[in-house]
């Protein structure tokens, strides 16, 4: 079984069926086309999106429905073609595609999820694309936690 070096777990053995292929890479990382999805039972629902080319590149992601249960996909026809899906309708999350949102940590350590551009993966072919949603009002910096209430001085 193949091995890869990872950012968070040193060297791991992976199976071919946990590999996803992104023909366009990710915006900002256009040459990174192969990732392995690492699922750590104790850290669910967190998913580690580990580059196979660059050990130090690993995105932390969450299934979109765990962040927003009412999330609606609006993938453009071009991205649906990359995914090899019917471009006349939106695919179903969970049965046809997996949909992950990438988590970023701001300078203030505020955790945000990019709901505007989820990583969509065709479950049949494991081909994925970071689909920039058009005509939607999802934020590229959706706060994961509501702000802590201000401490009250007595």
């Amino acid at each position: 079984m193949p091995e890869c070096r990872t950012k968070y777990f040193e060297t791991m053995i992976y199976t071919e069926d946990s590999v996803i292929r992104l023909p366009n890479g990710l915006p900002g990382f256009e040459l990174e086309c192969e990732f392995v999805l690492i699922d750590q039972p104790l850290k669910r629902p967190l998913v580690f999106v580990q580059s196979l080319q660059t050990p130090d590149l690993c995105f932390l992601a969450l299934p979109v429905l765990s962040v927003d249960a009412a999330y609606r996909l609006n993938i453009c026809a071009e991205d649906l073609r990359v995914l090899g899906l019917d471009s006349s309708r939106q695919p179903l999350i969970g049965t046809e595609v997996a949909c992950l949102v990438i988590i970023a940590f701001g300078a203030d350590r505020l955790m945000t999820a990019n709901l505007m551009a989820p990583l969509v993966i065709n479950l049949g072919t494991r081909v994925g694309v970071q689909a920039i949603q058009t005509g939607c009002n999802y934020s590229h910096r959706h706060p994961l936690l509501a702000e802590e209430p201000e401490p009250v001085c007595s």
Partner: protein
Amino acid sequence: MLVVRRRQGESVLIGDDVEVVVLEAGVNRVKLGILAPREILVFRKELELTREQNRVAATADAVSLSQLASALGSLNLKPGVEEADRHL
């Protein structure tokens, strides 16, 4: 910000060699045509925002991971819903 009213088929010129043409104007959206030299990059702003967010996301480290892992318990996650995404 400079505001210019244009109708379908009209255009604006930016500098010496960029032309933005309004191809279609609808209620909620417009279709623009952009004529520019090859060396000028043209892309939707959402792409640049996502590029920036991805670069920030790539700098996550073990501290971010433990921060996120400990926050997951307090996130209002829907059990069961995410299982569908777990067939990967």
